[in-house]
């Protein structure tokens, strides 16, 4: 008998596995409009992405190093902020990732379709 605690831990693990990578798509999509670290964090959590600051900030620098984001220091305001913006390349990659996401969503939906509508239902 598996306890509820273990099931919760199992679910958490699988959810993490499933969500890994979604932050990249979301960030590249959101940053088509320039944004800085904390603003992106707010936008993402308002949109329902459970992302932590200590994952997001290093991730932004990694995406910049890969050429998917560019950054610029904005010193016009009292508090200088580093603004990130999705590059053309980043946008193309984000589009490809969103396409894959939609395909997976359809595929999962098809698998989940109730019996009788699928040819394999007579098994």
């Amino acid at each position, binding site marked *: 008998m598996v306890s509820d605690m273990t099931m919760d831990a199992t679910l958490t693990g699988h959810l993490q596995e499933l969500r890994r990578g979604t932050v990249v798509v979301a960030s590249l999509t959101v940053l088509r409009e320039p944004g800085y670290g*904390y603003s992106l964090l707010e936008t993402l959590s308002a949109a329902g992405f459970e992302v932590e*600051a200590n*994952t997001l*900030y290093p*991730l932004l620098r990694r995406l910049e190093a890969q050429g998917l984001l560019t950054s610029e220091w904005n010193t016009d305001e009292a508090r*200088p902020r*580093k603004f990130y913006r999705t590059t053309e390349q980043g946008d193309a990659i984000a589009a490809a990732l969103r396409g894959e996401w939609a395909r997976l969503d359809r595929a999962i939906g098809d698998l989940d379709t109730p019996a009788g509508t699928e040819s394999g239902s007579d098994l």
Partner: protein
Amino acid sequence: MTTLIDRYVFTVLRRVPEQQRSDIERELRTSIDDAVDARVGAGAAHDTAVEQTLTELGDPDRLADGYADRPRYLIGPAVYPAWKRLITMLLSVVLPIVVLLTVVVRALGDATFGEVVGSAVTTILTVGAHMAFWSTLTFALLERGGVTRAGLPRRPWTLDDLPRYEPGFLTPAQLWSMIIWPVLLIAALVLQQFTFTSEPVLDPANWSFWWPYLIAVLIFEALYAVWLSRRGAWSRTVTVVNAALAVLSAGPIVWLAATERFFNPAWLATLSWDGADPLRWLTGIVIVIAVAGALYDIAEVAVRAERSRRGLPTAVPGSEPLV
């Protein structure tokens, strides 16, 4: 005075590459200030807001690993299989050989029984620790150097790598061990006459017949291995041939030992085992090893041949015994 935020930021920067530090510091401080302002705007006291923000950011070392893009493990999945194979090989093959050599060298010197056992234990611990440490260190450095699976010398797995699980089939490793063992024994038998010790260990008088005879039997053991792998099947003939070879090699050894003609008296005289009589002990050990080894060998081959004759498959490791 350093504030809580200073201490946090400095702790992160400590483990971040130097050329990135100033940029990361500016950005991190802004992000922290933004988060603190948001909390203060929501009605929190400033100090509480700072504490909550930093707590949420979590372990600064972890954040630094994120910035530096450092793996949070010693040996990753790419190099792990190669590391595991190397460690297994070192500890299961090389270490026993080193220990055996140490024991032989010590025993042939003037060491007492206790000293031999002591040096064996010390060798196992120190050499084993060295092997594990240096190979792990090497692989950890490879991991950090960014070696990928493709960079490792490794041929791709093919269907031919599957074990056969067929009775009677000798794997190449089994065949080689069956050939190399007699060759090593012949080498040891010849070399002990000239090296290792100032006096030969074994009675030189037996070079007139028994030592050449043993070499001949050992050569037959190696030929038997080749014959067996060519034949590709175990049978009663194999049982008989194997048993005959076992008796032909163990019989004379036991007889020579029992009649005190196995060891060189001049070498025995150089031994000083406090209290114990070397001849009596060594004779006992030789007889026990020769008899037990021969019996095990005969029984093992007989069981295999019988299983094969009845068409019983060999048990697959880890599965229920096949009846």
